[in-house]
């Protein structure tokens, strides 16, 4: 299976301070790939590099089989983009914007655009500048979907929108994906939304990739364990030990990753007992992952 987006050893440094370091990302065809990370971690910069808006200092970016930014126009014909901030002319009406966009894409589906206008309950004659935030987001998603691209790149598409609008947008997005089998690259803060729709998840922090795994692996692999009687120093563990804190007088709480049920057999081996295995949802797992990643980086540089 080929990857729709492949980033290899990317370095990008716009100036002093912030830099994307040694970034490698692989988005499989047909996947819904979620991109999580705190503010300032480099999510939007990565998206701009994928779209050819920025040029990296070193490393390769391959989108839909072609190189970015060299083949940008060819690639962009097949990529639908929904930015974080509305980037369209506020003095044009919705219909005028749709007609403008349609002229640039040979694959444009006018019927789908008309159907989405109805589905989103948008008035074609209203000026874009006069639409509410949610309506503007709907227009931008409409443009990306009517374009019939093979890849959708969405930068926080539902951020700051009310739940009803979010539902409408996600429903339209998922309908499109199931119909066309397009891949989706979506960066978002809304962890519970990412949890529902993504089958791959990548986490970024401070310009680096923390992890890139299938969603099930991150969700099911991250657990909180109640452990009693464990020695102070441990040898290698079969799971990834993120954190270890005292909980009660007798027991500790361990936060682990890459957990499998068979690993329960590890504890008698070190003279400890595993009292409980508690599931962590993606949000908690994400927080723990970041904590341990930052901790290990600090230790590494010490």
């Amino acid at each position, binding site marked *: 299976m080929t990857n729709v987006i492949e980033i290899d050893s990317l370095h990008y440094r716009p100036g002093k301070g912030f830099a994307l370091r040694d970034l490698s990302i692989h988005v499989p065809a047909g996947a819904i790939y979620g991109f999580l990370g705190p503010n300032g971690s480099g999510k939007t910069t990565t998206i701009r590099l994928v*779209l*050819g*808006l920025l040029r990296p200092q070193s490393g390769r970016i391959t989108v839909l089989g072609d190189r970015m930014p060299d083949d*940008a*126009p*060819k*690639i*962009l*014909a097949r*990529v639908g*983009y929904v*930015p974080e901030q509305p*980037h*369209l*002319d*506020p*003095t*044009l009406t919705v219909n*005028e914007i749709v*007609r*403008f966009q*349609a*002229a*640039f*894409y040979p694959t444009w589906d006018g019927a789908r655009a008309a159907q989405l206008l109805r589905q989103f309950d948008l008035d074609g004659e209203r000026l874009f500048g006069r639409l509410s935030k949610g309506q503007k987001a709907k227009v931008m998603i409409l443009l990306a979907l009517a374009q019939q691209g093979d890849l959708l790149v969405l930068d926080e598409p539902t951020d700051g929108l009310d739940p009803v609008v979010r539902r409408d947008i996600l429903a339209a997005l998922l309908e499109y994906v199931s119909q066309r089998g397009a891949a989706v690259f979506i960066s978002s803060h809304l962890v519970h939304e990412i949890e529902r729709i993504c089958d791959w998840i990548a986490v970024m922090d401070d310009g680096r990739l923390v992890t890139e795994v299938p969603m099930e692996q991150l969700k099911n692999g991250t657990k909180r364990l109640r452990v009693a009687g464990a020695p102070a120093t441990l040898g290698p563990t079969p799971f990834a030990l993120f954190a270890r804190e005292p909980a009660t007088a007798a027991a500790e709480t361990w936060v682990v990753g890459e957990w499998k049920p068979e690993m329960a057999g590890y504890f008698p081996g070190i003279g400890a007992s595993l009292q409980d295995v508690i599931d962590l949802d993606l949000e908690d797992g994400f927080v723990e992952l970041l904590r341990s990643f930052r901790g290990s980086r600090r230790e590494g540089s010490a």
Partner: protein
Amino acid sequence: MFRVMLYTQWKWSRLIILLGTVAAFALPIISMQGAAHADRNPLEAQDLLRTVQSWGTLYPVLAAALGLFVAMAAWAPDHRGRHVHALTLPLPRWRYMLLRCASGAVLLAIPAAAVLAGALLATATATLPPGLQSYPFALATHFVLATAVAYGVFFAVSAATARTAGIILAAVGALIAVQVVAGVANVDFDIVSPLTMIVLGPAGPFAIFTGRWMLVDV
């Protein structure tokens, strides 16, 4: 693609185009006012020439204004959106710029045609004193060229990124600085005057704005 570009360009610049067209049509007619009499003596011919010449100074102003505003209108929405929309369209940057430039140029043809129409009408309804001839086509051509130069220059400036504009300004500033230092050091080094001559002088690109804008002349 060109059609939608033209449509949006029209939507942004229609006011300036309409006003410019009215002005462009009226200017030749007004400049020829009171020239309907055949029995002019040589003194009145002089008066006519003076009137035509003084009104004539408005042509370069109108050409420059049209070029400026249409160029600005072409780029204002892009600048507002930080060019994100344009840069994510599936065509190379130079092609996009060409489409924009061409759509503005097409619209600027309208006031240019109005100058010609006004000039033809003005000279058709006037009876010129002997010794004077009318040059409506020359005037219209002069106007088209001036508008084109103004539009080209302002388009390039508007389309440039802040960095390019900065480079241009820095180069100009450096030249002036060099000139000043040379003057202080009493070195016989004059670069500004020759450059000014080249740019604004008779052979330069901006020469088109100088000179006489005469609908009628000897």
